């Protein structure tokens, strides 16, 4: 079945307009396949056996071609290979995609090129191949430094394997980050303190530390609803979060976003740009993109099913571009996204930017939140305090006028 986008928004109507002071450009490339699907994961993921059923290359190249209609103006400053498990991608494909990106937009000489890797698919030789293909930043899914926890999370690697992968990566890439999932069922504050200390002992320059989230439509959701395991209560989760902030700051890795910590200068440039409202092209099944055009900010969402996505792009009937949706964001959308994403950052959002966008803010509630120490006092900037960060969702809701 050929897929079409709504004609009104068909990409040919969106010639790459040269936007004065176009925001920084990044490319997000989604590789949806995983060797084992984690029971907590709600990303667009598919079993690795699907990976062998088709040649996905053509889809990715066509998608880049279409994206160029949306935004022609480069250069690309950051590329992020996410997933799924992009460490399963043939390094050759990665190299070719980067070359294509460079050809279309120009890839900045100091571009950050990140890739998410699973310790299972990260033997040293493979890491070297990835490096050779152009990857310079690796984000390693360690998830836990505890065998039982890894098992619970459905991870197929051991603690030792993750450690080895991390150490190997350190010698190969400019930058390496590791992901951990904490606030797990049964985990105590002391256990987490200990686990975090072990992570910090590896002296990473960047860490993503996520509290386990029970996402709808995941195996964990069902098991949790059935009472198979009990999540830490709010007080413990809050204590764990606070401990994380303190330990990381003391180790020189303060938070720069709700769940992301880095040594000075080591924040993930790609993600930073997207939280700051920058442009990113969403390439690959289910990928989302945000692009500023002459007509406004456009949101794209690619078809999530890999086969449907590929078919749409390969056929190209009626300009089919693999997109499930391409739509112009309304003012309200832009306002909400700006605040929603910006407040996640420790730096917050400059008031001048909010004013320029005309974001309707609730001045009364903002004053209250400042007085309560949940928002930073600086009137030039809208930013949550460390205490406020734990309540970010509510605060986001409160600051936006009803």
């Amino acid at each position, binding site marked *: 079945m050929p897929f079409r986008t709504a004609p009104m928004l068909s990409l040919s109507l969106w010639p790459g307009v040269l936007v004065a002071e176009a925001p920084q450009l990044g490319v997000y490339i989604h590789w949806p396949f995983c060797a084992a699907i984690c029971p907590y994961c709600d990303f667009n993921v598919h079993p690795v056996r699907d990976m062998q059923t088709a040649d996905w290359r053509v889809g990715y190249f066509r998608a880049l071609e279409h994206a160029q209609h949306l935004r022609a103006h480069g250069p690309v400053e950051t590329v992020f290979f996410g997933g799924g498990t992009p460490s399963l991608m043939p390094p050759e494909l990665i190299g070719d995609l980067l070359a294509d990106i460079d050809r279309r937009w120009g890839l900045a000489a100091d571009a950050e090129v990140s890739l998410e890797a699973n310790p299972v698919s990260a033997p040293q030789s493979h890491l070297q191949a990835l490096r050779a293909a152009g990857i310079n930043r690796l984000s390693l899914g360690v998830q836990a430094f505890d065998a039982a926890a890894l098992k619970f999370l459905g991870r197929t690697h051991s603690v030792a394997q993750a450690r080895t992968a991390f150490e190997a990566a350190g010698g190969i890439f400019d930058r390496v980050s590791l992901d951990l999932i904490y606030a797990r069922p049964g985990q105590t504050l002391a256990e987490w303190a200990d686990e975090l200390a072990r992570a910090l002992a590896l002296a990473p320059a960047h860490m993503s530390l996520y509290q386990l*989230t029970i996402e709808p439509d995941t195996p964990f959701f069902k098991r949790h609803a059935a009472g198979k395991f009990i999540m830490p209560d709010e007080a413990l989760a*809050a204590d764990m979060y606070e401990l994380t902030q303190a330990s990381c700051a003391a180790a020189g890795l303060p938070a720069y976003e*709700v769940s992301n910590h880095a040594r000075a200068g080591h924040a993930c440039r790609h993600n930073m740009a997207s939280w700051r409202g920058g442009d990113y092209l969403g390439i690959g099944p289910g990928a*989302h*993109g945000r692009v500023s055009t002459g007509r406004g900010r456009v949101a794209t969402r690619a078809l999530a099913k890999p086969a449907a996505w590929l078919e749409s792009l390969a056929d190209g009937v009626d300009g089919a571009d693999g997109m499930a949706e391409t739509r112009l964001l309304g003012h309200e959308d832009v306002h909400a996204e700006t605040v929603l994403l910006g407040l996640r950052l420790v730096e917050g959002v400059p008031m001048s930017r909010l004013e320029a966008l005309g974001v309707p803010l609730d001045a009364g509630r903002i004053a209250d939140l400042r007085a309560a120490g949940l928002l930073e006092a600086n009137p030039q900037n809208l930013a949550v305090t460390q205490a406020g960060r*734990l*309540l970010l969702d509510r*605060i986001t809701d*409160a600051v936006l006028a009803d």
Partner: protein
Amino acid sequence: MSVQKNIRNFAIIAHIDHGKSTLADRLIQITGGLSTREMQEQVLDNMELERERGITIKAQTVRLDYEASDGQTYQLNLIDTPGHVDFAYEVNRSLAACEGSLLVVDASQGVEAQTLANVYQAIEVDHEIVPVLNKVDLPAADCPRVCGQIEDVIGLDTAGAVNISAKTGLGVDDVLEAIVTQLPAPDGDADAPLKAMLVDSWYDAYLGVVVLVRVIDGTLKKGQKIRMMSTGATHLVDQVGVFRPKRETVSDLGPGEIGYFTAAIKQVADTRVGDTVTEDRAPCADILDGFKPSQPVVFCGLFPTDSSQFEDLREAMAKLRLNDASFDYEMETSAALGFGFRCGFLGLLHLEIIRERIEREFDIDLITTAPSVVYHLHMNDGSMVELHNPADMPDIVKIDHIDEPWIDASILVPDEYLGAVLKLCEDRRGRQKNLSYAGSRAMLEYALPLNEVVFDFYDRLKSATRGYASFDYQLSAYKTGDLVKMSILVNAEPVDALSTIVHRERAEMRGRAMCERLKDLIPRHLFKIPIQAALGGKIIARETIAALRKDVTAKCYGGDVSRKRKLLDKQKEGKKKMRQFGKVDIPQDAFISALKMDD
């Protein structure tokens, strides 16, 4: 006009769910009132809510023709009545239109509170009563035991009792014969001036106001100019008819007959139930006793959740009131809830039904405030003020004393739950008046203040007795009580819609219970929220809703932002289901749930 001696008028009375409407179905079916195709279960319960809840709310009258075993044809006028205590008034006026009653008793349950309440009313108006033991198809049915109860407790002879299953139709023929042989024909003089009792009236979309009457003397015909004796208003009759149960016009209604007329009457409010209808040209000499109008006993505020729907709500109220004069309303303004209406109801079920009809038939989301009763405030200057709304309580120094309504309650309960029921009644300031036994069932009579009963007494009673108790009450008198207004302060500001009138001795306990409930009902906010109960300036109870500690999404990347956005919208949507009060969002249902107590 039928031969007067062949008319039988009877009401079917019983406790809730003992099978009145089902028996009416069988009687209609057997006498051919409706074809099998037209028949449905409880066919007379034609309101949507009646069908849904399986209860009768409005009494319904049907005329049946029955050819008895004596070879003669009889005109039977049947009135199916509601069993629920809120609608006791419907029973009362139905009885007044008849000479006899069928007392239906579920043979698997036995005599219950409304069995007694209703049969005593029937005895009071000198009815011949035929006991009908229903549901004999059920294995638990025990006719001899239930007959014993009827004799012992009510003092009714059961020699003429009929055992039936209204469900299967077993024994229903015998009911028809018993009606003909045991119930009397109506008296009345066909040659006397017209004298008819106004039994009921309602608004019909096609006919306008329809008036149900029982003719006592004389004849009611089309073209007659009739007079309402209480007001003197006159109307020209333009249609006379009966329900079988389908509407059918007849040429006239003679003595003893029950039927309806229409006469271009503008609104139901122009008719008074119990009024005497006569002919303007030749009026009857005396007026029927009539009955006192039904009085709303429970009051509460109804507010539109969406304040822009206030006018729609006003319209809905007016429309419902057209057909239900027992429901009262007046405009109310609340600092917390904005514009709405203070409404009076016959009881909680009545309240619930009206509320549901507004929400469903008019598509208006409502906030309901705590139900309250009518207090009589005796002021220092000697005047008396009726207080329908605790928020309107005047300055205490101007009040000499406050009277509150009391009820006489009768409760039937298996012996093993007696202790629990006694405790409940005592907790609610009850005074025991009598305790007797019918077999292993205790029959308890209690005087209780209505304000202790109005809200959740029935629910508590049911849960304390696993549903085995039955309950009936009647308003008795106003009595002086040590009553005070209790205010609730949320975040240090009084919320008028949460204030209540309580007995001073119960204030602290109620205050504590309300604060505890509100603590659970109001979601945590970014700041802590004190909740206090106060009598005047004195705080008598206090709880604090702790500030929220954590509400943050752990991961949010490009793809998640649309989803996060939806979450944010949902949060905003959820807030619309709350009422903002100061800086605190209070959920709509808190205004009523706050009162629920788990004693």
